[in-house]
């Protein structure tokens, strides 16, 4: 499960020896995120975002559990109880802004974590399982965030819930009964709010469980690295602690500065003003938009404006939106280039930057009103999105000639590796 040169946990204090014999939990932690986990020495700052995502999860659970002590999940009083938190609960305004902006921060770091994976080929063998579990975590995060946004029971909460559950109504035959079953009624109401609250409380713990599996799966092959060359010898690695605990500590500091700047000075910048209007089933907002982190997928949903073959436009949109994420599950098998890192894949690299731009364009269009030119732009961007993952990646990985890789991580870092002399002539 680890490299043979990993430090072994050797408790010196008798109490720790006693604990280690009965329940080797300290040993487990030592081997997971302590000096017992050898990590490639060349990780760059893009490798900070996994730890930051874990931090965000804990932050959301802690603030969320406290908010739940003051919030009332009842359609009659939910909006007022949110305002009660903002006005009367001691430091309630800070908890709520920390939680709302914490969701945004969580998605920022997770998107960076995912794009790190895209660029450095982190999804490739032997790390497919880590990637698959990561996509599961992302899906759970989306469900959790969506239900959390419903809880304040403002206008966007209500109409967002109506639009998103309405997506299930596009499924043929079972769509409408399914939608009614999900909502517990014909439209979002108290039954929907109650179940969303219950699930919003539950799912973060499911996420935490999948995170544990994600990290477990990570520790079997060990962390990837920017060269994509696997660890060969001890000189390629450093112990996680103190090297990466120190680096992550600095990264966490930078993250917290940016996060707290938002929290204390621009707490509503990422929210929608309409959510400060109580939910009103009789009054539809001019533009219904989800939170920013859903915009790229919302743009894909809305890009399908025409019926195609036997598929109604709405169903196509729903299929495309879900497929846009589900396609990530197949990434390890769609891209079969033996080279992981984008640094050594000239053709792949160009398309990667186009994809980044494409997702930003989709995001912009998803937040804009459903009018021209945004719809046409999002249609072109949607076409590229599917072409990129399903057509371009498989072809590029077959035809591309990668650049030469360094012999080892040590060589990449130090410029030379004593062991490199032993490498067979190629």
């Amino acid at each position, binding site marked *: 499960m680890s490299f043979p040169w990993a430090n072994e946990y050797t408790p010196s204090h008798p109490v720790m020896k006693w604990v280690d014999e009965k329940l080797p939990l300290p040993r487990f932690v030592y081997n997971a995120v302590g000096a017992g986990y050898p990590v490639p020495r060349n990780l760059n700052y893009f490798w900070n975002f996994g730890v930051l995502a874990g931090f965000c999860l804990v932050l959301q659970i802690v603030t969320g559990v406290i908010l739940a002590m003051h919030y009332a999940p009842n359609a009659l009083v939910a909006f007022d109880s949110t305002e009660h938190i903002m006005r009367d609960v001691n430091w309630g305004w800070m908890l709520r*802004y920390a939680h709302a902006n914490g969701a945004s921060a969580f998605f920022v770091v997770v998107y960076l974590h995912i794009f790190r994976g895209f660029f450095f080929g982190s999804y490739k063998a032997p790390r497919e399982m880590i990637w698959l579990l990561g996509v599961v975590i992302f899906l759970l995060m989306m469900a959790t965030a969506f239900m959390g946004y419903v809880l304040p029971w403002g206008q966007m909460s209500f109409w967002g819930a109506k639009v998103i559950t309405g997506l299930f109504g596009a499924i043929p035959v079972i769509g409408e009964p399914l939608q009614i079953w999900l909502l517990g009624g014909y439209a979002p109401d108290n039954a929907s709010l109650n179940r969303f609250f219950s699930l919003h409380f539950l799912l973060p713990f499911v996420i935490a469980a999948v995170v544990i599996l994600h990290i477990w799966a990570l520790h079997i092959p060990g962390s990837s690295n920017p060269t994509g060359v696997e660890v060969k010898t001890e000189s390629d690695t450093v112990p996680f602690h103190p090297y990466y605990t120190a680096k992550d500590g600095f990264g966490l500091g930078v993250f917290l500065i940016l996060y*707290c700047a938002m929290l204390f000075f621009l707490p509503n910048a990422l929210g929608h003003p309409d959510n400060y*209007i109580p939910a009103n089933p009789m009054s539809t907002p001019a533009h219904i938009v989800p939170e920013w982190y859903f915009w790229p997928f919302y743009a894909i949903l809305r890009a399908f404006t025409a019926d195609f073959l036997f598929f109604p436009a709405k169903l196509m949109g729903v299929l495309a939106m879900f*497929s846009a994420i589900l396609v990530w599950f197949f990434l390890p098998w769609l891209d079969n280039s033996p080279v992981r890192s984008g640094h050594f894949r000239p053709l792949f690299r160009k398309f990667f930057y186009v994809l980044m731009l494409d997702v930003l364009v989709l995001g912009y269009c998803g937040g804009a009103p459903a009018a021209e030119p945004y719809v046409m732009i999002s249609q*072109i961007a949607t*076409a590229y999105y599917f072409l990129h993952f*399903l*057509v371009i990646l*498989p072809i590029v990985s077959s035809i591309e000639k990668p650049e030469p890789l360094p012999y080892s991580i040590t060589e990449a870092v130090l410029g030379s590796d004593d062991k490199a002399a032993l490498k067979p002539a190629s």
Partner: protein
Amino acid sequence: MTRLIGILVGLFFTVAVLWAFVTGAANYIAEPPAATAEHEFHRHPKELHLSSDGPFGTFDKQQLQRGFQVYKEVCSACHSLNHVAFRDLAALGYSEPEVKAIAAGFQVPGVDPNTGEETLRPGTPTDYFPKPYPNDIAARAANNNAVPPDLSLMAKARHNGPAYIYSLLTGFQDQPAELLKEFPEAKTPTGLHYNPYFANLNLAMAPPLTTTDQVSYGDGTKATVDQMAQDVSAFLLWTAEPKLEKRRQTGWPVLGFLLFATVLAYLAKQQVWADKKGKKG
């Protein structure tokens, strides 16, 4: 095999979305969307400068008191302030007896202790501002079928809220001649009032602030319409975000501490890595 299926699925979605693009583009060329009066004549809020602007801004309590007076004497006739209690007014600089006196000036719903019947009684600091109408139906009946919205959160419920409120209050005007020329069907209906800062240009509210000295300020400030509109916008920013000052006052030390801690974390990281530095950091 996976890749072959992938390519087919990818082409399916691509063709479908490009088909939607072609259909949409054809429709767009055949029937370009008609311009609307809302699109052409709606205006973004005017600039409004308040002492609470910027990361160091604080409320001007004198102004908040004036704004409260405008709310009390003008707006409260139709608009509720559901989330604000009289006790909260202490934040505007009122003393405890003053808050009690303000509360007592309002009649709030109560219960007769002898008969149990619903009745009205003078307010106390723990009471919330009373609603002007018993329910939405009564509100509609009295206001040309429009419910006057609650004002507690108005400054956060609109983009650029305080400037929006200020612009709306000072933006009533006659419908421009060119609007009527271009969109004759967009003539303001009877009972509504033209205001370019309102999303659909016509709102049910009649201009509430119309004359200088409509409200008599106690602090000597001249109560022009512009001044009253600014004051009530400032007041409604406070009702929407009463913790604004505390939030910023907390934020600065937090950022200061984090900056310090992050510098330390950086130096610690440099020291830990000192023996592992390669040719590139």
